[in-house]
């Protein structure tokens, strides 16, 4: 595996009273596609700029392959950046933009030409080498920026929201290409984004950030299925989140069948958890909309592990491959339910506005967020 591992240790950075980074530590593995995910102003870009060398932390260190890189100016770090605004040199052609890093090294003309050809080909810009950046589309500019950042063969590539200026369709395509590129060059990618779907689809691991702190580091699956905090649960995907109190907690083989009292729902629900929680502890309970089942009839199945609520469809939202229903439960709260579309093999009429429905899920599909933020 090429690339370097990156260790960020106890890094803080404040701008006046605003804490952009608050004692952040992470370890990014060699050759990993690592995403920093969070809303704007969460500190992710500040962290990226510190790694690149455009900003320096008030305290803490950044190690690259075990060496402290903070004393080095940006041009001496084996780290290159793909900027959000591309930052292509407007006075130079595509070819010259990509050749720029090599020209600085005063390499022989033939070597430069050969390497540029190789990287132009890598990002599939062979037909556009003599164009100026102003004549390129957004996606093409992005490729030039990537080629320019890669041609020096850095150990770590930093990507600062590289796709945010592109339209949704192109974004998906480039994301897949970026993933392929990562496999091809094999170096460490650190990808900054506020778009959770981008982060989930390409990352090996994700760090979710908010207000200058790292809330959770984990694989996309872990982040989505087992959010560490309320914020992570709400920020990644959609969810139904409730404040709850542990009513009782009984072991059931290697897990604990936990009963939670949720005042908002007006009754108790059951959920499984890996920890024994003390009775009376305040927790958050989350269940993803796609894990809820919406039916016109009360489900046949019953049992202690099934949670069933009756309600009325307040707002059905059709969105092609699935529908989202806002259901007002009899107890007053509204829950979101996402359901794949019924097909002809299903029975019964489609669920629609003002229908009386049942919303149900089994204990394993809920999740207890133990840490309460704020």
């Amino acid at each position, binding site marked *: 595996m090429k690339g370097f591992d990156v260790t960020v240790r106890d890094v803080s950075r404040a701008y006046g009273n605003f804490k952009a980074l608050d004692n952040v530590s992470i370890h990014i593995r060699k050759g990993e596609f690592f995403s920093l995910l969070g809303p704007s102003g969460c500190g992710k870009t500040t962290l990226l700029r510190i790694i690149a060398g455009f900003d320096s932390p008030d305290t803490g260190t950044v190690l690259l392959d075990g060496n402290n890189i903070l004393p080095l100016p940006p041009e001496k770090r084996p780290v290159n950046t793909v900027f959000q605004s591309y930052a292509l040199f407007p*006075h130079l052609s595509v070819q010259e933009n990509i050749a720029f890093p090599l020209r600085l090294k005063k390499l022989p003309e033939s070597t430069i030409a050969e390497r540029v050809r190789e990287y132009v080909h890598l990002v599939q810009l062979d037909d556009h080498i003599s164009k100026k950046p102003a004549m390129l589309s957004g996606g093409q500019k992005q490729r030039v920026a990537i080629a320019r950042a890669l041609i020096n063969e850095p150990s770590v590539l930093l990507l600062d929201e590289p796709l945010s200026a592109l339209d949704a369709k192109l974004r998906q395509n480039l994301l897949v290409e970026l993933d392929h590129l990562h496999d091809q060059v094999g170096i460490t990618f650190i990808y900054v984004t506020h778009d959770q779907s981008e982060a989930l689809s390409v990352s090996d691991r994700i760090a979710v950030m908010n207000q200058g702190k790292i809330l959770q580091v984990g694989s996309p699956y872990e982040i989505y299925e087992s959010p560490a905090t309320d914020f992570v649960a709400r920020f990644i995907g959609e969810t139904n989140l409730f404040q709850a109190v542990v009513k009782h907690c009984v072991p059931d083989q290697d897990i604990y069948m936990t009963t939670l009292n949720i005042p908002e729902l007006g009754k108790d629900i059951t959920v499984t958890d890996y920890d024994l929680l003390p009775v009376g502890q305040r927790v958050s309970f989350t269940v993803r909309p796609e894990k809820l089942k919406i039916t016109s009839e009360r489900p046949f199945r019953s049992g202690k592990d099934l949670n069933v609520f009756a309600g009325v469809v307040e707002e059905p939202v059709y969105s092609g491959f699935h529908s989202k229903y806002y259901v007002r439960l009899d107890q007053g709260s509204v829950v979101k339910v996402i359901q794949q579309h019924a097909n002809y093999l299903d029975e019964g009429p489609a669920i629609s506005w003002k229908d009386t429905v049942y919303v149900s899920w089994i204990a394993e599909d809920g999740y207890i967020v133990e840490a309460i933020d704020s």
Partner: protein
Amino acid sequence: MKAIHQNSTRNRRLGFLYTAPMGLWLTLFFLVPLSIIVTYSFLKKGLYGGVEWEFTFAAYRQMINPSFFRVFLRTLWVSILATTITMILALPCAYAMARSRHQVFYLGLIIIPFWTNSLIRIYAWIAVLSSEGFINEALRTLGIIQESLPLIYNQGAVITVLVYMYIPFAILPLFTVIDKFDFQLLEAARDVGSSKWQSIRHVLLPNIRSGIITAVLFTFIPIFGAYTVPLLVGGKDSYMIGNIIVDQVTKTRNWPLAAAFSLIITAVSTFGVLWMLVSTRKERRRMKTGRAIV
């Protein structure tokens, strides 16, 4: 189709009307005076000023004279030196202004001197530089010098005051282009391996070229024709073409010779503008096909 066609013809006729005031202005205040000067330079000098309507090359023959040639070279030298110093000072000033959060304040500082007549500002410099002036008095009081330093009535004083007079004309166009410059490009250059200086040399300067050219022309051309500054703060070693012209008009009363010297200034300025235009075009062509860093 027909409507569009009619419309476009009407616009074409209107287009002429739009440019007419400009054409009239240029004819009245540029072409006519220039023709008068050209004509005068080929006429015989009148006894007490003015001209006699008789065609002659006398003015140009008088111009071919080593002492006049020396003045021409000196004017060129002073102008190049003053322009270079102005640019060296103006670039960092404009850069700092463009990056500052108090742009309006600094722009105000640049513009405020224009509220005062330029002659008064030159006299203010005399009060600063003369042997009893502010600097000499201050140095004497501090005991650093006994004798006054020769700060005035020499070429150094002329260049100092010229730089002072024309630096706003360099800063303003430079500020405009640097303000529009995307500073992230400098970070991008640093990121891929250029030093601070290389990023300025290879990324900032090429992208603010138009402003640099404007600034050079805005300072070089008026400095080349300057006469009040060398007259008031200059000495024997700072007599410039502008002074020749004034003396030929007011003292020697050789108007054709004055006209001929005026044409030299016009020619040098025109040459400067053309040279800049050609070099930009060349640069553009070079960048299209050529290399980023040479």
